[in-house]
């Protein structure tokens, strides 16, 4: 790789850093955890690099390292997108309140699964614990 190539990559790096700072702005706190999970899925693109390492490996050590890297990176991709999608399922259109009885959700186990879905056991990151009870009583 000559000096020109590394400068191209540095240029890409700097521009991408600016885009990364600008692209998310004013994220409502309810979306903090899903956005974290979504960006987590995006860096799963490391799988492409892992595939290149495995596909171009020359010795046994590299093959083993590349193989493990592909396994780990695949976990990152699959887990990242699936977990994010499950979190965001909470945001799908709501049912009208017809047929709901007041207090129908009291102590209902059905809401339990959604409890804290966008947050943490400690309720830390997203101030919102359970904005949308999943399907319960609707």
């Amino acid at each position: 790789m000559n000096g020109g190539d590394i400068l191209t990559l540095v240029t890409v790096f700097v521009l991408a850093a600016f885009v990364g700072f600008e692209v998310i702005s004013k994220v409502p706190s309810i979306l903090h955890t899903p956005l974290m999970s979504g960006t987590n899925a995006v860096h799963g693109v490391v799988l492409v690099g892992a595939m290149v390492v495995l596909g171009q490996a020359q010795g046994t050590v590299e093959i083993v390292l590349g193989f493990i890297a592909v396994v780990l990176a695949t976990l990152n991709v699959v887990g990242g997108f699936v977990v994010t999608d499950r979190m965001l399922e909470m945001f799908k259109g709501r049912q009208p309140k017809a047929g709901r009885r007041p207090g129908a959700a009291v102590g209902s186990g059905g809401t339990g699964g959604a409890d804290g879905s966008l947050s943490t056991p400690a309720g830390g990151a997203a101030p919102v614990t359970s904005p949308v009870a999943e399907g319960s009583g609707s």
Partner: protein
Amino acid sequence: MNLDTGIRLAYLIAAVCFILALKALSGPKTARAGNLIGAAGMALAIGMTFATPSLSRFGLMVGAMAIGVVIGLPAARLVKMTAMPQMVAAFNGVGGGAAALIALAEFVKATPGSLAVYQVVEVLFGIVVGSVSFAGSAVAFAKLQELMTGRPITYPGQQVLNGVVATGILGLAIAACLSPHNWLIAVIGILGLLFGIAFVLPIGGADVPVLISLLNSFTGLAVAASGFVLHSVVLVVAGTLVGASGTLLTRMMSAAMGRSLPNILFSAFGSVITATAGADGTSGDRGVRSATAEDVAVLLAYSQKVIIVPGYGLAVAQAQHSARELADLLQARGVEVFYAIHPVAGRMPGHMNVLLAEANVPYDELKEMDEANPEFQSADVALVVGANDVVNPAAKNSPGSPIYGMPILAVDEARNIVFLKRSMRPGFAGIDNELLFDPKTTLLFGDAKDSLTKLVAAIKAL
């Protein structure tokens, strides 16, 4: 157009998909689509990599990917919603691990002495940041999964030891740049793992999610470094995007908790909590969580049941009309809304009912305390507008408190509590309200009428 150009263009499209995905993930309406756009970009990038002519061992590759899918898919699908944060930590950690392994493999492959200094720096950066992220995420996972205590683990000289390890990594890295040996690189990698563990141990409790977000941006940077090592533009773009937006997100998350990032990383949150828990009624410098009108609007709009608790602040601000407008908007979105009226809400019994009736609030939406209290535990949000003492749990829990024994509205049983308040000043009785410091409480500061008007505007804009 030859194949190589096609592959590069596909990577460009994938990078654009990732940018659009992050953009869309920032808004509630577009978030789910954003995730799918990201997944589409990812599928394109991976698919085109299979077409790369210089690669071989596709069988082994597919086998490794199959293992990843067989472990990852059920784990992600079956995990309980409450366990999501630790899953994010786990999937983040493996990404960091993969980035470190890529850098390591490329170093092993290079002929000894053939690497320029900047190439060694790229490798070292990928290995160190990747292994810190891997080990740190593993500890964060263990904490959240309760495989170990979730509380901060501290010991004397902890910061000093962490400093020594960090300095050691830096020193060895400089040595490795001068004469890159395999064993030096291996020691640096192991120190990176150790540092990841040591750095996360003192962070506990509610701070762990912020930590995961920070480790997430670390992984992004490690991926960018492995992109430099492999001369892969798509890795540099995606990794840097995550590194930058993840840093910003980490700051937003710590700001939402009312704390600064250094405070979270170096102050061992849990010990602070235990220290102040006994001292009743001291607000001191405890953090409260304030939010913007947009945050609260999203929370309200995506709830199923909202209970409005009006108090004196609503009366003095003449905000009853705005309150009704907000309730109407929410009801139009299918949210169940009613008002819980404390007997002494306002300045005299019945004051609040009159004010709200004047704003044409239907009578059946006004519930007296005894009727309203059982409803709070099924409410998604209790929206407290300018009330304080009538929702203060001290009346139930603190025998020493001047308001002990006063019946209160059971706002503390709601899943989320939002206070619209002018300031942190205590209420009429002059005593602090523990509820303001509750982890499920969000504060929106400002005049009640202004805040309600902003909420109405923000919900209309959703």
